[in-house]
């Protein structure tokens, strides 16, 4: 990594938005030797309200902790898309859950990739791992944090006993992303 990368993950409270940010941040900070700052914003209600996790990744000490213009935006709900799409940098990467988000209007220059993450999670029998499918998808489409680092951080961040389910969910998202990239090429 040569320069600062700003990542924003948005969705409904309860979808695991913060956990997704936690995995990326922990992977970068603990296993990739980068500097990472995770901040979060959520409404007063825990579940259902709009919620976002912001992660700043940096090769050296990151003093300014805020995400102002994301290089990467990951969204799992329409309100999150509507709210955050205006903030992204020109040429930003957008990843969205395609059954929950219609990425319109899409600012010119934004590279958008959709994934049926809910359906992929349901195939594993647990819809709640949708956030982890998204993390896998993210890992396939960016090298901001190394694959190994994200996997290690994932195993450390999820509740004990759910590691396999979560790694399977990660793998599904990752493979879907890799296929999509291969097709586009």
């Amino acid at each position, binding site marked *: 990594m040569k320069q600062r990368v700003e990542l924003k993950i948005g969705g409904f409270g309860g979808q695991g938005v913060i956990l997704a940010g936690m995995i990326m941040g922990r992977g970068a900070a603990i296993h990739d030797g980068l500097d990472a700052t*995770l901040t979060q914003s959520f409404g007063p209600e825990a579940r259902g309200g709009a919620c976002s996790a912001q992660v700043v990744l940096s090769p050296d000490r990151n*003093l300014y902790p805020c995400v102002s213009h994301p290089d990467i935006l990951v969204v799992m709900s329409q309100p999150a898309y509507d709210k955050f799409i205006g903030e992204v940098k020109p040429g930003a990467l957008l990843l969205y859950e395609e059954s929950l988000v219609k990425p319109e209007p899409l600012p010119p220059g934004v590279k958008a990739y959709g994934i049926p993450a809910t359906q992929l999670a349901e195939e594993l029998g647990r819809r709640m791992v949708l956030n982890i499918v998204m993390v896998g998808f993210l890992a396939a489409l960016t090298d901001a944090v190394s694959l190994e680092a994200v996997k290690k951080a994932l195993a450390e961040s999820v509740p004990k006993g759910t590691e396999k389910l979560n790694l399977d969910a990660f793998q599904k998202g990752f493979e879907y992303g890799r296929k999509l990239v291969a097709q586009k090429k």
Partner: protein
Amino acid sequence: MKADPKGVLTGTHFLDGDHACCEGALAAGCRVAFGYPITPSTEVVERIASRLPEVGGVFLQMEDEIASSIAIQGAVWGGARSMTVSSGPGISLMMEHVGLAAMTETPCVFVNVQRGGPSTGLPTLPGQADMMQARWGSHGDYEIIAIAPNSPQECFDLAIHAFNLAERFRVPVMFMMDESVGHMTEKVVIPPPDAIEIEPRRFTQEPPEKYLPFAAGPDLVPPMAPIGKGYRFHVTGLTHDERGYPVMSAEAQEKLVHRLVDKIRTRADEIERSQEFMTEDAEVLLVAYGITSRVVQRTLQLARQKGIKAGLFRPVVVWPFPGKRLRELARKAKAVVVVELNYGQMVLEVERAVCGAAPVRLVPHGGGALHDPEQVLKVVEEVAR
């Protein structure tokens, strides 16, 4: 003295500021805590409630903040290191006992994860508007020490420093976090226990029959008595003599309260701590503390890109205020710009320290969000002209 290994979670962690503060307290030897959870400090309480029993300590959730802030002082007189944790509304309730701790010279730590106020204000959003309350929120004349960390790593490191200063000066130390720092997650490196210096509690060398609990030597800080060793003493919030007994006179007041104030004021050099960024040639000197000292890093960068010689002075220990160094820097500056999440608190102290050496501009913010670095830049550009 080195840290007790039992409380030290050596390793590299990804922690938020609240959790890091808790680990710092444990590393510092805190083994008793009382509190009443309140956003955004709840995570400190949650973690310390689960961690203290693991290290042989005790956490008790009290009926309110008033009870919490007096219970910690009982714990300290019983021989423990202790702290309580809250946010604005709870800290306001605790103020009575900050004064008691100052008057009875009880070393303890009050963690304030600041949110927007006044009153119940903005529970989940940041503020830095309790800075003046931290200094003199309780009635009467006294001095305390206050520290403003700006990262989870500092929440760990400076929590240890807070306990150490509390012991060295026998004062309540106000640990002034804010919602942003408390809920921000970053890498926190916890060193091995033998790399952590702990200030031991200083006990009297006098035998019990000669011991005067409030008689101080030249350092103005009286040694404490070990509990359960035959020392008898009396502790009161009333003005007291060296024996600790109430004396209602101007002479006793002068002797005691003057010392309480002087033990901090005359030794401020030992306590003050600040950080500087690009101040060597700074014509515009930004002053910020806590989370805001990180927000203005962006302003600093933008200003330098535009060719403005901007620098940053950051008080780390905010009370006593590092005024001497600030004055030196202000003498070389065209202007001083104070950035804080309130409508003007520490700026008053900055003006006092700068004492006309340069014009002082405040960039206020009512809280609930952080400053926009580009808005701060506009002020920097204005004063640089």
